[in-house]
């Protein structure tokens, strides 16, 4: 049983579940404590010691039956044969052709194929080699099972032929019809059982192959792919990942907030606190620094920017509790206050609404014009504690970039950060005004991938 558990653990690991050595040792102790008689208890014991993330539970549920569902129906010997008939059967078996003799002996006598025999068959069928070179999926699994069955002579056609041969021999040995019927039935039942075992053998072996369905690696891969180049399915997958990512960023930001150097000496609090020591200032009190940033986000939602804009807005609003105030504006040809949408809806709902309400046009991006509206109507959203974030490619369709307005903003704001999905070598080419904007910014990040976006956002929460 121990080896079985160890194999199970390695299958879990190859599916991306993190199981430490200590945990697998715990699982063995746990099953010693609960015993193996009750399957449900056994399963719960493994689950509590091996699975520490709710997200890993489905993997566990999927793998568990493949490893611990018992060995299928045990193979049986034909019942109700007289000693004489038994002898006839054995003689008949000996008369069979060599290829089918071994198999039929096992089937007729109800012998389980040993692990070694299965390994050997797999080797001969070339299954072991194939397993390493294929990605695991249901189709490959079926195909490999089929191949191994053929090698062992267990496909229905092969079996039919072999049974017929045996029947013929039995008839020659003089066994009566009833006995033959009995033998036939047992063999067919046993063959079914053996097929199940083979299927399970293949399934387990595939699961233990490293790199099978490496979910975690896939996410890493997606994190580093340009957002604009993702398919819809991949974007969905990343959306689900944003939550986890944000959770990590949030706890980092919160931690930083705590570790940040404390603020000024607080006379009032110190006096009050030290009353207990008769007014002797034994413990000093300091004011807390206000580190939570105030954000004003100005997002370009034109066609080329949509994927990045979506993830940016999503992440900023998921981190709302680490931000003292967030306002957001979207622009294509003119600026729109979209904060209200985020107040009324949750981020995952608000983002599609915003993108739906501002349909992209053709080559009509005008940041300069949008900025002048912004400075007229919303300049009060920017004060000395605000970080202004531009998310855009800086492509202005040869409109006036209005650098003067960016300078005004720079004067009022704490920092100006620009996030641009284009690589630096494309800045300033064509209608891009990025090179003109860049010197006015305190930081410029390239954010083509989710990873870069996460790093850029993490940077916003750095203390300065």
């Amino acid at each position, binding site marked *: 049983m121990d080896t079985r558990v160890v194999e199970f653990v390695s299958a879990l690991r190859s599916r991306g579940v993190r199981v430490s050595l200590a945990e697998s040792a*715990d699982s063995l102790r746990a099953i010693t404590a609960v015993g193996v008689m009750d399957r*449900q208890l056994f399963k*719960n014991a493994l689950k*509590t010691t091996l699975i520490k993330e709710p997200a890993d*539970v489905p993997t566990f549920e999927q793998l568990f039956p493949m490893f611990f569902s018992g060995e299928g129906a045990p193979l049986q010997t034909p019942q109700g044969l007289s000693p004489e008939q038994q002898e006839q059967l054995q003689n008949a078996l000996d008369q069979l052709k060599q290829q089918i003799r071994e198999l039929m002996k096992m089937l007729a006598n109800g012998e389980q194929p040993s692990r070694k025999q299965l390994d050997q068959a797999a080797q001969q069928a070339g299954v072991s080699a194939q397993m390493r070179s294929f990605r695991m999926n249901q189709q490959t699994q079926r195909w490999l099972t089929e191949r191994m069955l053929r090698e062992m002579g267990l496909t229905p056609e092969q079996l039919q032929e072999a049974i017929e041969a045996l029947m013929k021999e039995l008839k020659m040995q003089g066994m009566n019809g009833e006995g033959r019927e009995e033998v036939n039935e047992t063999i067919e039942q046993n063959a079914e059982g053996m097929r199940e075992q083979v299927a399970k053998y293949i399934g387990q072996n595939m699961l233990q192959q490293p790199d099978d369905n490496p979910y975690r690696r896939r996410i890493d891969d997606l994190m580093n792919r340009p957002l604009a180049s993702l398919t819809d399915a991949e974007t969905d997958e990343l959306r689900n990942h944003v939550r*986890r990512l944000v959770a990590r960023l949030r706890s980092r930001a919160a931690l930083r907030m705590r570790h940040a150097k404390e603020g000024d000496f607080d006379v009032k609090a110190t006096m009050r606190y030290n009353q207990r*020591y008769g007014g002797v200032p034994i413990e000093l009190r300091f004011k807390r620094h206000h580190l939570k940033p105030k954000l004003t986000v100005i997002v370009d939602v034109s066609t080329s920017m949509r994927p990045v804009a979506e993830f940016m807005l999503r992440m900023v609003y998921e981190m709302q509790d680490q931000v003292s105030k967030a306002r957001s504006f979207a622009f294509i040809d003119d600026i729109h206050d979209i904060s209200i949408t985020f107040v009324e809806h949750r981020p995952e709902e608000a983002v599609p609404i915003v993108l739906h309400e501002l349909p992209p046009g053709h080559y009509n991006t005008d940041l300069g014009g949008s900025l002048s509206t912004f400075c007229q109507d919303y300049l009060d959203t920017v004060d000395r504690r605000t970080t202004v974030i531009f998310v855009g490619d800086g492509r202005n369709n040869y409109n006036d970039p209005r650098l003067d307005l960016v300078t005004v903003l720079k004067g009022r704001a704490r920092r100006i950060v620009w996030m641009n999905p284009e690589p630096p070598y494309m800045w300033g080419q064509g209608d891009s005004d990025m090179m003109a904007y860049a010197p006015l910014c305190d930081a410029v990040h390239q954010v083509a991938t989710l990873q870069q976006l996460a790093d850029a956002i993490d940077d916003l929460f750095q203390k300065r």
Partner: protein
Amino acid sequence: MFNKVSHITDALAGQQYIASDEISTVVFLAEKMGKPILAEGPAGVGKTELAKAWAGASGRELIRLQCYEGLDEAKALYEWEYSKQMLYTQLLRDKISQVMSDASTLSEAADKLAAEENIFFSMRFLLPRPLLRALMSEKPVVLLIDEIDRADAEFEAFLLEILSDFQVSVPEIGTIKAKTQPAVVLTSNNTRELSEALKRRALYLYIDYPTMESELNIVKMRVPDLAPMVAKQIVEVVQKLRQLDLKKSPSVAETVDWAKALVAINARHLDEKTLNDTLTVILKHESDIQRARRALNSKTTRDVGLR
């Protein structure tokens, strides 16, 4: 004490706690292996309640440490009672001069004082906080560390040391080792990811919302005065509400509260008016209430057979 998993289920049921197979198995293993339980899940599914029931079932005392942002060692482990020390110093001034009076030289006086100074850093002036109390307790205890995800990561690291050796060292006194190893339950609402190290050391238990059947059992057990028909209806409504996309889904605790509220207003059946009036007991956001009203009035009225 508990030799079979079913004993645990029965004992917990004796504490009015309905434990699933999974919960009982984990508690059983925690008893056998002496490992802490880390219970995660949405708020109000009975994680804290589990610790209380376990303490009750095993006859241990429950010591609770509520975590919050900024919780530190002084508040979790121990603190010196400065004011008491100061008071004693003042009161004992006469005694001290008496002790010191026969010292002829300054160094002799210092030695004498040094010999006495231990009393100021003795257990007498140590204010044990929950963790230290759990370690020093003569009787076995259940230590409940509630909402560990609210505490900071450093506190989590500090907790790890205690949970692995069950001893702490107080510099002025020495190492204090647990007299009896406490049974530990950590709960988390999953607001942040806990460290791998903590998860590795604990038995993991994810408690989800109960099925309709077991929730009905819980309501019946906790609020026996409620008419069975109403109990069934409210559980059905709550289960439906959990399917909706709400800001905060109603918890089991809130279902029980709702049941109590209905008993208080003496509701015989759950009609539309009663439902609308009392919905605020289970839903705490205005937008949730709006959404629930819309969904319930259109759908549940027919499904549950409300009038």
